[in-house]
């Protein structure tokens, strides 16, 4: 039942993303708070609801963003997939796993956005996108993941108490 915190938490994350995070720019890129939040959540050991959280994030973002829904679904679920794989393999170094997921996830998400938007007819220069959007976003996402990871670890301890898990 405590998993229902996904709705207010991700709702707040999307609102913050739209109103504040998107204003804090580095060149033309900015951090992706829902992506970092989902990555941190999926990397927690006890969490078994990462996919549900991904779906909730897609629902909220679908209302606000004009990004095609397939990009969001494939992008966020791809990030969750990578996180779940790494969580099993790099569990002894959680922050390293977090950085790896955010790094790979951001690249994957931006590449997917680039390809699908190009396919839909939007004209992009790959150099501009890579240098002015993706790399700055990557850096900001990595920085954002430092405070988000411990926060989501605390949330996971609250959602999955030790007694209940045992």
């Amino acid at each position: 039942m405590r998993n229902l915190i996904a709705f207010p938490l991700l709702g707040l994350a999307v609102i913050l993303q739209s109103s504040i995070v998107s204003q804090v720019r580095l060149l033309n890129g900015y951090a992706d708070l829902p992506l970092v939040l989902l990555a941190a959540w999926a990397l927690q050991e006890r969490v078994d609801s990462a996919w549900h959280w991904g779906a909730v994030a897609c629902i909220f973002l679908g209302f606000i963003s004009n990004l095609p829904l397939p990009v969001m679904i494939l992008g966020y679920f791809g990030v969750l997939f990578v996180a779940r794989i790494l969580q099993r393999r790099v569990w002894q170094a959680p922050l390293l796993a977090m950085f790896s997921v955010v790094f790979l996830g951001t690249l994957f998400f931006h590449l997917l956005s680039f390809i699908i938007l190009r396919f839909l007819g939007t004209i992009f220069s790959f150099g501009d996108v890579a240098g002015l959007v993706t790399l700055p976003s990557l850096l900001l996402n990595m920085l954002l993941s430092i405070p988000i990871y411990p926060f989501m670890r605390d949330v996971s301890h609250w959602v999955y108490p030790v007694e209940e898990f045992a």
Partner: protein
Amino acid sequence: MNSRSLQTTIIFLVVGGILVLAFSGVLGSASRGFTATLINIQTWIAGRFAGFQDFVTAPRDIVTLRQRNAELEAQVSQLQAQLIELQQRVNETEILAALVDFSRSNPESTYKAASVIGRDPSPFLHYIIINRGSNDDIRRGMPVVTNQGLVGRIDAVIADAARVQLVTDPASSVNVYLQNTDTSAVLYGSVTGDISLDLISQNVTVEAGDLILTSGLGGGYPADLIIGQVVTVRALEFELFQQATVQPAVDFSRLEIVLVITNFRPVDIAPLEPATTPIP
């Protein structure tokens, strides 16, 4: 009267008599030395007492001062918060006054003011979200402006909010004309937020500073809305058209309040466009 009380009485009378003589000035220099000594002693005692009094009462004063200081600091914080709020209101009022001036100078259109409450979460797209929706008669395709010029157009609407595609969006294209040369062109956005002109005829001379306005062609935007000025021109002989970079009139990074032109209905000219396959 016994001898003891008589002795006491005599001593008192002698001392009293000396004092009377001393205060009446009969004793002269001896009297002055005596009174000076008394005054010095009293001064010393008074000084020590004052120091002791300060020592005793000082802690109470510090507590009072600290309380007063805390009250004043709280008051300063409150006043600073009020100052910030008032500055925000002044800024908002200035923006609204400029927008009112703009709407008065363009009476042919009807406007609805809206606040910008968010931006698209994706850095690939340039959209803003405003706090007016279908409940306020906002419809898809309506142009959005500020007193400085064209901002974009409504892309999607829900009950109490709408999403606006900015002219800087990479998927945006606007038919424009250059006022000085009276020639038409197309304005494109980009992922970096820069806007540029394309499809400018090679037969015209475009110069930096030329004003760019919407042409109204295509029915997507009303005519004569200011967009910006030409900054640089790229004209190559082997290309069909000239291109130019544009300095937008609107500062898209500081959009706070915008106006939606509510009496403009975009025209869908898709059915009139030539078919790709010939009709038999």
